[in-house]
């Protein structure tokens, strides 16, 4: 499953690592947009198989952040 961002911004920090088993609602990433830090939460349970961004990256609306298996 692809977790996408619905908002453009700068990745402030990635809070999960490849291999982590995560639950629905778990904080996976902090995104800074317009000087506001927003949490990105996982929409489902799963295992992190790929992280498509790192701290400091600029992401646009619709970009894939994390892939869950």
């Amino acid at each position, binding site marked *: 499953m692809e977790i996408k961002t619905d*908002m453009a911004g*700068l990745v402030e920090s990635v809070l999960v690592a490849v291999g982590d088993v995560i639950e629905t609602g778990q904080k996976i990433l902090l995104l800074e947009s317009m000087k506001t830090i927003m949490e990105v939460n996982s929409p489902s349970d799963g295992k992190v198989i790929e992280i498509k961004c790192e701290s400091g990256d*600029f992401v646009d609306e619709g970009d894939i952040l994390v892939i869950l298996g």
Partner: protein
Amino acid sequence: MSKKVLVANRGEIAVRVIRCCKVMDIPVVSVYTEADKDSLHVSLADESIFMEDRRGYLNGDTLIALAKETGCDAVHPGYGFLAENAEFADKCKESGLIFIGPSAKSIEAMGLKLEARKLMQDSGVPVVPGSGLIESIESGLAEAEAIGYPVMIKASAGGGGRGIRVAMNKEQFCELLPAAQKESEVAFGSSEVYLEKYFDKPRHIEIQVIGDHFGNIIHMGERECSIQRRRQKLLEESPSPVMNEALRDKMGSAAVRAAQTVGYYGCGTVEFLVDEEMNYYFLEMNTRIQVEHPVTEMVTGFDLIKEQIKIAYGEPLSIKQQDITLKGWSIECRINAEDHEKNFKPTPGLIERFYPPMGPWSRMDTYLVEGIKITPLFDSLIGKVIVWGHDRKEAISRMRLALDEMVIDGVPTTAPVLRKLLDDEEFIAGRFDNNYLEKWLKTIL
């Protein structure tokens, strides 16, 4: 050397400064980054310089070099970015440039909030009961007990409401202190925090001051800024609905005293917290032009940016205290790219259609043009609608009309929620405090 100003900023304030320079017949240079290439401040200036560095507005050395290269003799910092950076003010001076703002010394003295509190106390300006720097949870708990809960944990290097936490009791204090220290470290590069008494129904009322290089300092009345969400102002007005002449004189004198204490020149704002008994306490001084400065301009008739520039170029203050009378009423609504239905989530994106309010006695300060992309890289303020009326009732009516006529298509903004607030009985009656907006929002969502 003839005058020429570099505007070291972006957004609506850059546009505001550029317009003022044009009125004063001073050539003006703007700077911009990739994200701002279509912004109004780029096309309005006489010259515009592109900066490759995404963080260019924060790069003092680059800005000074660009000012020198383009033959400028002065730099206007606007607000935010380097406006309250004493090192930048100093560097400008060292490079032979006029920094359109106060001295580095004044910025420094007021920038360290705790030091400023002490200075104010020593000068007889009332301050909110509070603590010194908090070294540990243990010493913090002792200080909090002495002040009495609830207490606010504030960043010593902070401002603009960031890095503030409210602890209602001991348990919350232990939980919130590390979080406040961390946020302060991230936002301001220092984890130093201190405590202040938290008031239940405070109002935020600030006084505009202006001074020259010859020791003349006056105040220009108050701005009521209690309509806030998470300590970010959303609507401001002048005068305040709770102000009277005697209190204005007292708070105005205290603000002038505060400015005199740090040898202030230029435009500045002394922020006060006012309790239900109308006692007032110094909060902090912002050593720059404020976002909400237009409401003061509308009721006093003076152009604050123009005065700022004249003072920076060494002219004596042309206004005397007796020249200041607040005529009528002015309100400002901040138009932020935020969606109030989604907890004020930022809404960067494309402006598909834009039609500013154009009725009489209304003004819009903005950098918007149709087709511009609002970037997520900067704050969410995309414009300000300001109106004037003979009295508060008329100002509210004119603001309703202005917001009804304004069209911003493409991104949700704060305009609809502010329009709704203008119909709220408590707001209309002027019965609100700093916590009112957040309570009211819960009733409408």
